[in-house]
């Protein structure tokens, strides 16, 4: 399975132009197109804590600023802290001669041995710690208060500006909208709502009064001098925080390690992926944080024929050599493969496009297009990229109408160890051998001259048949349909040698 995670030998061109290995792509069963992580829409499905595996509903996660309320990160090495219990002896307050033992808890890091005691935080009496006892050390609460005041001021200024803008616009508003208010039971707020305007603003005079109470910051002439002891005191690097430690706590950014505080653990997310053209999910994980399964997983690996490089002869610039590729059919239906050169495919595409556009102009007319734009928001997509890989080898392909058919994937055949490979009698001679849903095909490759020492990359278009079982909307034909799909493939055959 290791090749699943890493294979840069065979690359598929995604609809958006990115080159990816098949294991990193999706196949939208509605659009019948390849999609990749770059061109799908990612969405946050759920928030959970990766330590205690608790799921937080999105609204709650937002309130808690995306932090788990029970788990903490070590401020020193940023790993997760663990709870530790100890027994301490306390003198009985009533009877000083008696000593009681008491269970106390503190947090410790198993990676760097930092403990909450290092930060001078008191031990807790209960295991599930609430950080209440820890917040007293925070020094920035005055900053937070000040920011609240500043926020309020900015909002008022913004409102005031809107007020003036509306005042200006009012001159041009039709009289009818303003005079609705004389009708019984109709308030001005009501009218504003119906007219699609934001609710009435507080009177500008009130705002101005409130703003007058605001105290702007005052600049000071004196600044803190450089401490004299810096010139004499030896530096202990273990007492001074590093940049990652400071930035892990943006509000306080402590300079000294003693000021480090345990941080509430950041939540993790489960994400789903959506096709941006048809808005169907191509991947959706199960909600349960400990599950690695998916509710929807339209990986290209299950639908698109897979290609692997089997052998390549010596690659020498200008000399023909044999390259064998293995094609396998992952689907539950037979598939027919044929090969087209990149140039032919481009020409075909070009022809199709000019036809399409003229069709559109002729038949649909303006009415239809404006209607569709009303019902569905326009699809926003970046234009496809040109392929970024340089083809450095010529490949001789069988003629475009030469086809081979691969049988469907048969799970039982996977366990057939007879090792038998056979060649069907009516196969053309370029099919080397077959086994179950796989076939090895031989190609003649000529690396280009002048690329000695570089990789030999060949490219072609694989045309395969696919059984579409999803009826297109509007059609009553429920029968699965066979369609022909193209995908551009790039194979890295190896290094081009000099001789």
């Amino acid at each position, binding site marked *: 399975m290791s090749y699943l995670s890493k294979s840069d030998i065979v690359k598929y061109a995604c609809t958006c132009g990115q080159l990816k290995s098949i294991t990193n792509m999706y196949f939208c069963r509605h659009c019948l197109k390849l999609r990749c992580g770059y061109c799908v829409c990612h969405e946050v499905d759920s928030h959970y804590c990766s330590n205690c595996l608790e799921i937080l509903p999105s609204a709650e996660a937002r309130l808690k600023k995306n932090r788990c309320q029970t788990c903490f990160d070590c401020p020193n090495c940023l790993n997760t802290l663990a709870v530790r219990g100890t027994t301490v002896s306390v003198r009985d307050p009533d009877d000083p001669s008696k000593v009681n033992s008491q269970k106390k808890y503190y947090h410790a890091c198993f990676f760097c041995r930092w403990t909450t005691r290092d930060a001078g935080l008191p031990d807790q009496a209960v295991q599930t710690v609430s950080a209440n006892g820890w917040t007293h050390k925070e020094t*920035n609460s005055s900053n937070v208060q*000040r920011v609240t005041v500043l926020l309020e001021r900015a909002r008022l200024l913004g409102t005031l500006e809107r007020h*003036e803008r509306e005042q200006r616009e009012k001159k041009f508003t039709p009289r009818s909208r303003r005079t609705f208010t004389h009708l019984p039971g109709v308030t001005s707020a009501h009218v504003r709502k119906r007219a699609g305007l934001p609710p009435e603003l507080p009177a500008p005079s009130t705002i101005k009064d409130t703003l007058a109470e605001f105290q702007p910051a005052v600049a000071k002439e004196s600044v803190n001098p450089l401490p004299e002891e810096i010139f004499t005191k030896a530096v202990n690097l273990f007492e001074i925080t590093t940049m990652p430690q400071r930035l892990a706590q943006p509000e306080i950014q402590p300079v000294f390690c003693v000021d480090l505080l345990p941080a509430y653990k950041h939540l993790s997310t489960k994400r789903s992926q959506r096709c941006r053209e048809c808005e169907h999910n191509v991947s959706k994980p199960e909600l349960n944080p400990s599950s690695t399964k998916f509710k929807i997983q339209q990986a290209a690996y299950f639908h698109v024929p897979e290609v692997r490089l089997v052998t390549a002869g010596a690659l020498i610039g200008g000399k023909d050599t044999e390259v064998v590729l293995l094609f396998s059919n992952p689907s539950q239906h037979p598939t027919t493969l044929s090969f087209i050169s990149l140039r032919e495919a481009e020409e075909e595409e070009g022809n199709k496009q000019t036809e399409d556009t003229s069709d559109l102009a002729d038949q649909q007319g303006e009415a239809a297009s404006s209607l569709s734009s009303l019902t569905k928001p326009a699809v926003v997509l970046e234009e496809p990229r040109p392929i970024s890989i340089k083809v450095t080898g010529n490949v001789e392909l069988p003629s475009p109408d030469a086809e081979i058919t691969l049988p469907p994937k048969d799970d039982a055949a996977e366990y057939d160890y007879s090792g038998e490979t056979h060649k069907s009698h009516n196969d053309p001679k370029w099919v080397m051998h077959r086994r179950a849903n796989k076939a090895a095909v031989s190609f003649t490759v000529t690396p280009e001259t002048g690329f000695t020492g570089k990789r030999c990359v060949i490219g072609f278009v694989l045309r395969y048949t696919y059984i579409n079982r999803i009826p297109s909307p509007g059609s009553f034909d429920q029968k699965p349909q066979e369609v022909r799909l193209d995908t551009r493939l790039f194979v890295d055959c190896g290094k081009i040698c000099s001789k």
Partner: protein
Amino acid sequence: MLKTFYEGGMGLTTEKQAVVFDFGNEYTKVGYAGEPAPRSILPTELRCPETGRIQRVFDAVTFDEKYDLLVEFIHTLYFRHLLVSPKDRRVIIVESVLCPTTLRNMLAKIFFMHFEVSSLLFVPSHVVSLSTLGVNTALVVDMGATETVVIPVFENVAVLHAWQAQPLGSFAVKRQITDMLKKYESPELFRTRDCVIPATRVKVEKTEPQEASETSAEAGVPEGYEELEEREEDFNYITEKHIEDIKVRTCFVTSLARVQKAEEGNPCPPPPNVDYLIGRSSRIVNISGEIRENAYNVLFEQDGDHISVPTMILDAISKCPVDMRKPLAENVLLIGGTAMATGMRARICEELKSLVVSPQYCDKLKVRTFKFHTPPAKENFAAWLGAAIYGASDIVSTRSLSKEAYLRDHQVPDWVSLIHNVFHDGTKRSL
């Protein structure tokens, strides 16, 4: 205290919080509008999945390369740090005056076309920083990674003809540390490519600040640095991260008095040395007291062209009309991570006081007092906080560029940048 008008459900609470980005050359700050601090501050860089090498996003040379790195980087920001879906959410971007139009257009394309956000608003970092104070006039000094930019803001309007920009930022300090270390340590320690600190150049063109920095950051690897085959080996060399760590943890800005004494030829005893361990073999690199004390002095040296951070401040003030000068000098706002270095404020203050009475400025400038602001934030995210405060107001709905407008015209009109166009007690101001 101010009363809250919004509690009664003005409709703002139901709207999704806008996301605020400040893409710095070295560190990116990201979080939600209306919050007192960013959710994350992280290096503006990505690890290449194939080579494992760290790539700075803004070092990318070609358009496509930068576009792809930004897409990837912003994707990580949304799904690892903000934990929200980008689609149909408002975005506010803090931009520097030096931000080239090409970058702005690229960001617009990425956010609208790739992430399908609902609206976009560019806010100028200098002007919005003032909303962390609630004042309308200040001299904003942004000391970032690649450069220091000084812009006077008077009655909420940036006085653009007076702006100053110089490559005096933390990269200059890091280069200084590297150069000083090279004097004492064996050269093979510096063999890796990761130790090269990008050279920066700021082309100062007073007339058109928007276009000025098309060439501001230039990354180049000088000859003689080899690409190391094995990653593990790198641990035994000094990398740029080490230099950054040395700068942050051991260096400080010394006082003017000590510098003057050293210039007169009787230097004070240097601060203690620090032993710094590098690599698996725990090789000890000696960070001398001289390095610790003097690395930051590059920002204050008036060599050749007589430009240092304090002279930039004074030049910016003297380029302003006479009646603005006093209010500006009495409202200095230092932002940017480099301003967080120990002793920075004190040194700038000392230098300003001594410079205004020096022959260089005493006739040109009549201001004698300088006052410094303390925003309710750490300096490195002050600009972000300004945008987060500003962006929590109605401005996001009235001034943003909407998705529909962008899809129609596929361009970012100039008014989207608030550089010429900021609110001021309710009156719209345009220059």
